[in-house]
């Protein structure tokens, strides 16, 4: 059974009849030009935007979950994260347990271990570099052990090392029947990590499926409005403006 199924998601001026399914173990990349509706789609799935249409979680309508029940299943990593206060890393990761109303020390430390921030547990967040902070924000989501992680451009401002690191962690998360849906601009990087692609253009699905169906020169050139060269056979894959 599909882990999540979106049917005719519609949001005024942003999304137009978007339908797709994500199976357990999958990593789905939402791609498309700026303003295509990537963030809107993720935020609708996370319950942050009131999109019309239906969302099913393991076959159950998502609106039948209460907000806490939904938060236990679906974790959301926003594009821009910050902490208003100089909190210790461990305290931030522990906030991921809020939907469970507990402070599960095992889950918190497991999340810190997976993201490699255990050694910084007692450090203040504002003492860390951007790449280290990115892993802390992700650890916060992992601590809630959600079945699905929605990540909005999680690697946008990171250097090459941390880009790979974050995507490795997300890929790891898709084991054990979990899934990840992420918005991403780096198509070549996405081609290395993601099983499925959802190419959005002006709020509609322009193409959906495995890399070889979606990441074609015709599809991408059409969606982005520039001529794009694609070589998926190359290792690592090459996707560049021609």
């Amino acid at each position, binding site marked *: 059974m599909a882990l999540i199924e979106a049917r005719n998601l519609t949001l005024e001026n942003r999304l137009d009849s978007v339908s797709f399914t994500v199976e357990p173990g999958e990593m789905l990349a939402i791609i498309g030009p700026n303003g295509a509706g990537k963030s809107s789609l993720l935020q609708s799935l*996370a319950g*942050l935007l009131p999109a019309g249409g239906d969302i099913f979680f393991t076959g159950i309508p998502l609106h039948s979950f209460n907000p806490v029940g939904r938060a236990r299943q679906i974790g959301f990593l*926003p594009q821009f*994260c910050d902490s208003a206060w100089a*909190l210790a890393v461990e305290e931030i990761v522990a906030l991921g347990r809020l939907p469970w109303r507990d402070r599960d*020390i095992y889950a918190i430390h497991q999340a810190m271990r997976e993201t490699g921030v255990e050694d910084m547990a007692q450090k203040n967040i504002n003492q860390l570099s951007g790449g280290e902070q990115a892993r802390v924000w992700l650890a916060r989501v992992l601590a809630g052990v959600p079945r699905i992680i929605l990540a909005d451009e999680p690697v946008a401002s990171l250097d090459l090392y941390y880009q790979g690191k974050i995507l490795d962690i997300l890929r790891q998360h898709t084991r054990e029947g979990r899934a990840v849906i992420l918005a991403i601009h780096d198509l070549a990087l996405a081609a290395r990590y993601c099983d499925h692609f959802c190419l959005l253009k002006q709020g509609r699905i322009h193409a959906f499926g495995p890399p070889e169906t979606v990441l074609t020169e015709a599809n991408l050139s059409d969606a982005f409005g520039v001529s794009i060269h694609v070589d998926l056979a190359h290792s690592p894959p090459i996707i560049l403006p021609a």
Partner: protein
Amino acid sequence: MKFSTITKKIPPAPALLLPGLMVAFLLSLSIGSAPVPVLAGLLDWLIGQPGIPALVMGEIRLPRSLLALCVGAALGLSGAALQGLLRNPLADPGLTGASQGAALGAASVFYFAVLPGLGVFAPLLAGLAGAGLTLLLTLWLAGSGRPALLLLAGLAIASLSGAALAAVLNFAPNPFAMQELVFWLLGSVSERGMAHFAFLLPALVVGFALIWRQRPLLAALSLGEQVAVSLGLDVRRGGRVIVLGAAILVGAAVATAGNIGFVGLIAPHLARPLAQNRPDRLLWPAAAIGATLVLIADMTVRLMPPGREIRLGVLTALIGAPLFIRLIWKMRREWL
């Protein structure tokens, strides 16, 4: 498996704050123009034994100390809650328009003598209503905007309340009434009785309870509104509850004691290191520090040389404003 310890090296907040508060309260009971045995006086007052010590303790010092304690706790707690909600360490009940609204409400009742049937409670209730109204106006003006906008909106509404208050003063029926009101606005916990305490205590309990239940929201809001919603929290409803709680606290405090500035700003700031900077753990330490600060300030007022008494609100403002400037100075350096 190696788990790092959650507990910090800092001693737990209660160990530091409660003894300090107790000492300040007892000192406040023992300081005054006439030497009076504190415990004996209290005991006499409790068992209804007439006499000077019972009169001084029961009618003057106990209400004064209890009011200082409650006003300080209310201001510290509301400051901590508003700072957490707005994600801004510079949020002060005064910067959200609540204090001015409370002052305006209470002052209007003084002047226009409305709600005469309520007696001493009329200005108190009007102050509460004024604080609530200004906070709602501020929230409405800021919409769902960023915290910075909320502070600007608060400033705008505070100016509006200030203008209305000036108008009330302008059209004062006679100069004596005006003088009385101006003095009242400067803030004081003296010349008040147990009736004021009986009004303030329930407001403190209700405000505290409303805010206390929103601790998960305050914690989640550290990471922003989007994260809080995605964690399953009702930000809109919870935010309104916090604002309501803060309005009750500030409204009741200002209505009973006038403007006691900067306590709501400074108390959470001093409490933050004891709460590991967590806005949800900040609440009662900020209340305890606020109470201690106002008790100390009120004792300072009483220890000043006799003659023209400096008002409590004037003293806290004279001490608080430089601290506020220092806080901004520190933040400026952090942003450079």
